[in-house]
C-alpha cells in the first residue's frame, strides 16, 4: 500500500519537475504574449489592427494630442517606447511614472489606440499580498482543526471532533 503510494508520488514528482524544467527552458520561445511584444517592434505590420494588452510605465504625457509615451513593463525584458492614443478615454489625471494596464489596437510601428486603460496605484500590488497573508491563518486554522499528521505513518488523520 505504502510502496504503491511512493511509486505514484515519485511518478507525479518526476512529471511535475519535467514540466517545470520544460517551462524554464521554453517559456520565452513560446509565450504568445511575449512573442507579440517582440513582434510589435520587429514586424509591426503583422500585428496591424490586432488587440494587444500590456502593462506599461508612462514616460511622458501629451495632453494636446491626447497621447502617452510609454514603455512596456515586461520583466526581465525592456522594450522600446510606444505611443498610446487615449482619445475618447478619461486620461487627464495620468502623469509621468504612473503604471497603467492597457488594452488597445495596434496601428503601425509603435502606435496603439487604447480602448481600455486602468491606472495601477502603487499600493495595489502590495494590497493583494496583504490580503493574501490574511488568508493564511484562515486556511491553516480550518485545515489543522480538521486534520493532524501522524508522523509514524505520514498520513493526515481526521481529528476526533470531526469524525
Amino acid at each position, binding site marked *: 500500500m505504502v510502496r504503491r503510494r511512493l511509486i505514484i*508520488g515519485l511518478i507525479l514528482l518526476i*512529471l511535475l519537475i519535467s514540466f*517545470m524544467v520544460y517551462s*524554464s527552458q521554453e517559456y520565452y520561445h513560446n509565450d504568445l504574449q511575449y512573442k507579440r511584444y517582440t513582434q510589435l517592434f520587429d514586424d509591426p505590420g503583422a500585428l496591424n489592427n490586432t488587440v494587444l494588452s*500590456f502593462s506599461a510605465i508612462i514616460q511622458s504625457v501629451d495632453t494636446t494630442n491626447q497621447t502617452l509615451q510609454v514603455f512596456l513593463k515586461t520583466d526581465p525584458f525592456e522594450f522600446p517606447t510606444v505611443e498610446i492614443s487615449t482619445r475618447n478615454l478619461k486620461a487627464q489625471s495620468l502623469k509621468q511614472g504612473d503604471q497603467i494596464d492597457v488594452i488597445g489596437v495596434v496601428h503601425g510601428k509603435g502606435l496603439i489606440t487604447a480602448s481600455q486603460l486602468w491606472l495601477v496605484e502603487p499600493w495595489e500590488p502590495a494590497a493583494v499580498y496583504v490580503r493574501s497573508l490574511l488568508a493564511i491563518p484562515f486556511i491553516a486554522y480550518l485545515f489543522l482543526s480538521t486534520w493532524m499528521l501522524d508522523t509514524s505513518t505520514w498520513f493526515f488523520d481526521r481529528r476526533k471532533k470531526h469524525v
Partner: protein
Amino acid sequence: MSDWLTHSLVGWIAGKITGLEVSLLLLGSVLPDINKIYLVFQWVLNIRTDTFFFPLHTPFGALLLAGGVALFFRDALKAFLSLGVGIVFHFTLDVLLVEVGGGEPLLFPLSWQGWQLGVIPASDYDLWITLYVLIASFIVYIVYSIFAKKKARSS
C-alpha cells in the same frame, strides 16, 4: 491574480455548497498560487525562477501537485477530488479577470495559449471582488447555520 482571501472564501463557499471536505477544497483553491514561491527567490536571492514555477499555476501542474498532496491522506481519491474541485474554482475565478499578461494557460503543456473571459475589469478586482465574496460567504454561513440548527432539532 486574485488574492488568497478571495480564493479561499470562494473555496469555503464551494465546500459548504457541494458538501465536499471544506478544509481540502480550501487548500485546493489556493494551491495553484504556490507558484508565487518564485517571489521569495526573487526578493531574498535575486534569482528569477518565475518561468520554472510557472507550470504550478496551470490546471495540469496544479492537479499533479494535488495528486501528490492527496497521497498523504488515507482516502487519497476523496482528498484528490476535494483538492481538484478547489483548483477548478481557482482557475474559474482567475479566468473571469481581465489579465493584461495574456490570460490563464489552461491547456499547458499542450498549448501556451492564455485564456480569459475578462468579465471583471482590472479596476474592480482590487477590492470589490473580495468584498462581494466576503458578503456571499456571510450569507452562506447564515443559511448553513440555520439549516444545521433545523437538522439538529429534527434529529
